């Protein structure tokens, strides 16, 4: 049952061409506090599903309901694309402030003093406060991933969509980032949907595990 608290898809079909859906017959209800991991072969439609939930693509068929609406409102969704979507020539602070502004201001007046506080806290939580003014292009791959996570944390979204966001992280940083994100989800009762190929890692983070196979999305674990 769709409500303003959950994410519901009924008989959903996602893809780029109407006659060639990547995933069809998708049905799920995700409730606050849940972390959902999706795995499956490349090109099977996992990223397309995330994009549809983020409101970037229209579903080919069926109903997609994100917090009671067919498209999420400003600041409700934090999206970490596979290639991160950071502004390479801008500083870490600028990138994270973009998230903070989306989450805490209106589109008509995207300025607020509190944004800086949210940004600093988020950057500090992923351990790159000393890189505040550094252009993103000068950071290593792992550090850039942490910036993308900080951008989402500063935004404080109700739904986090993360596409392989733990790749390229060393073991120590991975533990730290995982803890920060898990704490955020449990403290804010948010929903997180992540695409993750590493089964062990997915099991550690998520409480529900789905696999995309043969054009369908199947739940394989509910921990």
């Amino acid at each position, binding site marked *: 049952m769709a409500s303003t608290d959950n994410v519901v898809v009924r008989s959903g079909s996602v893809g780029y061409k109407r006659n060639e859906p990547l995933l069809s017959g998708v049905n799920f209800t995700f409730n606050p506090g849940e972390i959902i991991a999706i795995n499956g072969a490349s090109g099977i439609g996992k990223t397309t599903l995330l*994009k549809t939930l*983020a*409101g*970037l693509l229209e579903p080919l068929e069926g109903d997609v309901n994100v917090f009671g609406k067919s498209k*999420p*409102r*400003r*600041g*409700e*969704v*934090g*999206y*970490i*694309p*596979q*290639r*991160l*979507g*950071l*502004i*390479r*020539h*801008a500083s870490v602070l*600028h990138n994270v402030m*973009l*998230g903070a*502004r*989306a*989450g805490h201001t209106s*589109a*008509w007046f*995207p300025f607020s003093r509190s944004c800086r506080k949210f940004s600093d806290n988020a950057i500090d939580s992923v351990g790159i406060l000393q890189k505040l003014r550094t252009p993103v*292009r*000068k950071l290593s791959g792992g550090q850039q991933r942490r910036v993308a996570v900080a*951008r989402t944390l500063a*935004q404080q979204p109700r739904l986090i*969509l993360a596409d392989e966001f733990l790749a390229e992280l060393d073991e120590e940083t991975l533990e730290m980032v995982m803890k920060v994100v898990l704490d955020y989800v449990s403290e804010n009762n948010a929903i997180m949907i992540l695409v993750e190929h590493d089964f062990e890692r997915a099991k550690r983070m998520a409480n529900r595990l789905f696999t995309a196979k043969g054009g369908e999305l199947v739940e394989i674990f509910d921990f």
Partner: protein
Amino acid sequence: MRTLSAITSLWYQWRWLGIFIILLSLAIGVTNSAIEGNWEKLFDSPRNVQTFFTESLWPPDWSVLEPQAYPVCEESGWLDFTCSTAWIGLLETLKIAFVATVFGMLISYPIALMAAENLSPAWISYPARALLAALRSLPSILWAVLFVIMIGLGPLAGIMAMTLYTIGYLGKLQYEVIEGVAQPQLDASRAMGHGWLERSFGVILPESANNLISQAVFMFEYNFRHGTVIGIVGAGGIGYYINLYLKFLQYDKVFAYVIVIFVVVLILDVLSKYARSLFNDDKVRKKHPWWTILLPSSITQKLEEE
């Protein structure tokens, strides 16, 4: 069947030479029809050039760098060249190019944002593209003629003409850069719920700033080179003096102006290359002597690879 396959394989092997020969024959054919078979005219031209060069152009008359008789020069000593027509014209051309580039850049960016297909819907982007194309379709010299008619002789006509052309030319370069901004950046911004203005100035502008600045520096250099031409129709700058001496058939003075312009273009080229390298990327570039700008870019690239 075997013959056909042999011909195909022969064509495949020599296709580039074949295409080159076809294009060359076509060019010679078109030239022949344009000059109505009068090839002697072409073969006589080196002799004419030699006569013109030795009798009219050489040596250049450097009096263009001397102070004008009126108004009386107030500078003394080695600074008196600042009262010369070459210096005054040059400075005016540089000013026209600078102002036109700044105004052109500021006006073209919002139009380029509207013209970019990844930011604006088709009903906004197509009219914006048409506007830029319209501004670009007239070369700056024709804009200058129109503005001289409308607002009279002088640098203001030059500034307006150059600004309009800059908007058209720079706007096209800018929307192409904007359309080149990677999709994940735009996806993340859209998913967060950024508005059009926020996305344009918070995401697109910083992401493409290096390219935009590099293009503006290039445009300034381009405007200076064209600024020398628009003076000919009375829109101010060094071209005004060139036109004056052309009318009096004083080609040695014209030649001196041309040399002055050439030197300034060389200096601007070096400065613009350096300025653009500051904004291009973080790669540590090998610094080469200034004269490498005279080499074809393929050779410069080879030097950089070494």
